[in-house]
């Protein structure tokens, strides 16, 4: 499988702001040299707990955060360090779906406006009417009624908002989509619908998908490969089947073991206790 996105040695640090009288605090490094690759049409899961750096990794891949070291290659071209204008053609090909649709949809724009403007910006339609036709097509595909174009985000349910988020990400026909914890706030039945939709779309449109989540069960269900992150480093990566059947890193083992499956298992609570206490000391 050809690689679409290849990141090597990514290092991201945030500079702590210094107060007027206090000395400058040292920079906090969030990513310590991360490598990751996503093939064309492939779904890769990025899993980690809070503080693992998974969200920062996603943003670094999209160029929303500038790495202090390392490179990102998109379809063979270096996109790290490009300025706004040079990046513009790549923007259309790399899109993002956000965790909280409430804050990722402008509350004062209609859904129609949210979906039409990107189309017009990138010249995928010559006028408003043509763009609207494209938007209707996308809304049909994600299972939303056409009247949604006149609605505002607060008039929709959580699941509907997330579908709008997906619609926005795919309306530009990108090659790569980053999904950042997109089902974390949803009920399990809504989650199932949204993930199914995403799975269908990625296969129909041959999209490369980087799926960030803390939920290993969700990742197992939709990803082909998985990258396990802890403390800003990749501790393990490989095909899902392999990593789940025979995890090599202790942390991966601990993570898998901590997932409560909906089966009664009296020994589960006390299993692995010693390992955990040692690891989190």
């Amino acid at each position: 499988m050809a690689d679409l996105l290849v990141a090597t040695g990514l290092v991201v640090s945030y500079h702590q702001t210094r107060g007027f009288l206090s000395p400058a605090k040292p920079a906090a490094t969030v990513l310590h040299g991360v490598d990751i690759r996503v093939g064309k049409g492939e779904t890769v899961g990025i899993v980690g707990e809070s503080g693992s750096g998974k969200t920062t990794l996603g943003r670094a891949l999209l160029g929303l955060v500038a790495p202090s070291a390392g490179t990102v290659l998109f379809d063979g071209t270096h996109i790290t360090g490009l300025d706004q204008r040079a990046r513009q053609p790549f923007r259309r090909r790399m899109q993002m779906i956000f965790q909280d649709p409430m804050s990722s949809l402008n509350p004062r724009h209609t859904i129609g406006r949210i979906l039409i403007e990107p189309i017009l910006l990138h010249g995928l339609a010559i006028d408003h009417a043509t763009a609207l036709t494209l938007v209707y097509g996308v809304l049909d595909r994600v299972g939303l009624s056409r009247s949604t174009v006149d609605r505002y985000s607060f008039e929709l349910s959580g699941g509907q908002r997330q579908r709008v988020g997906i619609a926005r990400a795919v309306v530009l026909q990108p090659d790569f989509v980053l999904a950042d914890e997109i089902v974390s706030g949803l009920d399990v039945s809504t989650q199932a619908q949204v993930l199914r939709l995403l799975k269908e779309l990625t296969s129909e449109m041959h999209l490369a998908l980087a799926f960030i989540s803390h939920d290993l069960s969700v990742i197992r269900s939709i990803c082909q490969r998985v990258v396990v992150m802890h403390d800003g480093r990749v501790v393990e990566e490989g095909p899902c089947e392999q990593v789940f059947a025979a995890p090599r890193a202790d942390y991966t083992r601990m993570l898998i073991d901590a997932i409560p499956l909906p089966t009664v298992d009296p020994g589960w609570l006390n299993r692995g206790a010693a390992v955990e206490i040692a690891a989190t000391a």
Partner: protein
Amino acid sequence: MAPQDPLAQNLLIATVPPIGFADAEPGYLLGTDGLGRDVLSRVIFGTRVSLTVAFVAAGLACLIGSLLGLFAGFLGKFVDALISRLVDIWMAFPPVLLSILLVAVIGAGLHSVIIAIVVIDWTRFCRVVRTETMGQAQMDYVVAARTIGFSNPAILFREILPNVVPVLIALLTLEMGIAVVVEAILSFVGLSVSSDTPTWGGMIAEGRQIVHEAWWVLAVPLVALFATVIAFNQLGDGLARSLDPVLRR
């Protein structure tokens, strides 16, 4: 629009009470002042001065302060540091002193009242808008706009500004009320327009001296002032509600 000439003096009917009281004079609905001038007409003419100040002064302060606040909040770092320092230093000057100085330098008159208000109050807009803008800039829909490829000016004016406008409207109507009161104070001490033109503050100053014989000369402009400030606030609420889809739900 006024029933009588606000400047016409008629000592024969000086300090006549409003209609409904004893000794009232027909044609002079709210009575007359110490020089026989019709109170109602003077209040109406005074409205013109007050409203001019309200719209122009508040509008200019809003425009200048908001633009600077938007840039400071969105561009951050150097621009923000510069503008914030400016605001801090500016606010360190005592406002009353500043306005008196200004009027002394430029000379009394409506334009100096407006300039004084703008010069002092733009900082209020700047600070609030800066904070709001910074908050909005953190939102995911701004990140989404960036991901899609919108330019910085587009993001600032199309994504962020609509979400700052509700606060701005509230602040603007508040400022309009303040401007009217400031003008009244300045004309009370004689620093506003010339004494020919009737102003509410001027009327209050005159009315204060004859409050025992003709309380209405003081009361009427006070009520007008009060009512105007309340009206502005109501206007702000209504405007916000009709313009803002989020508030309309």
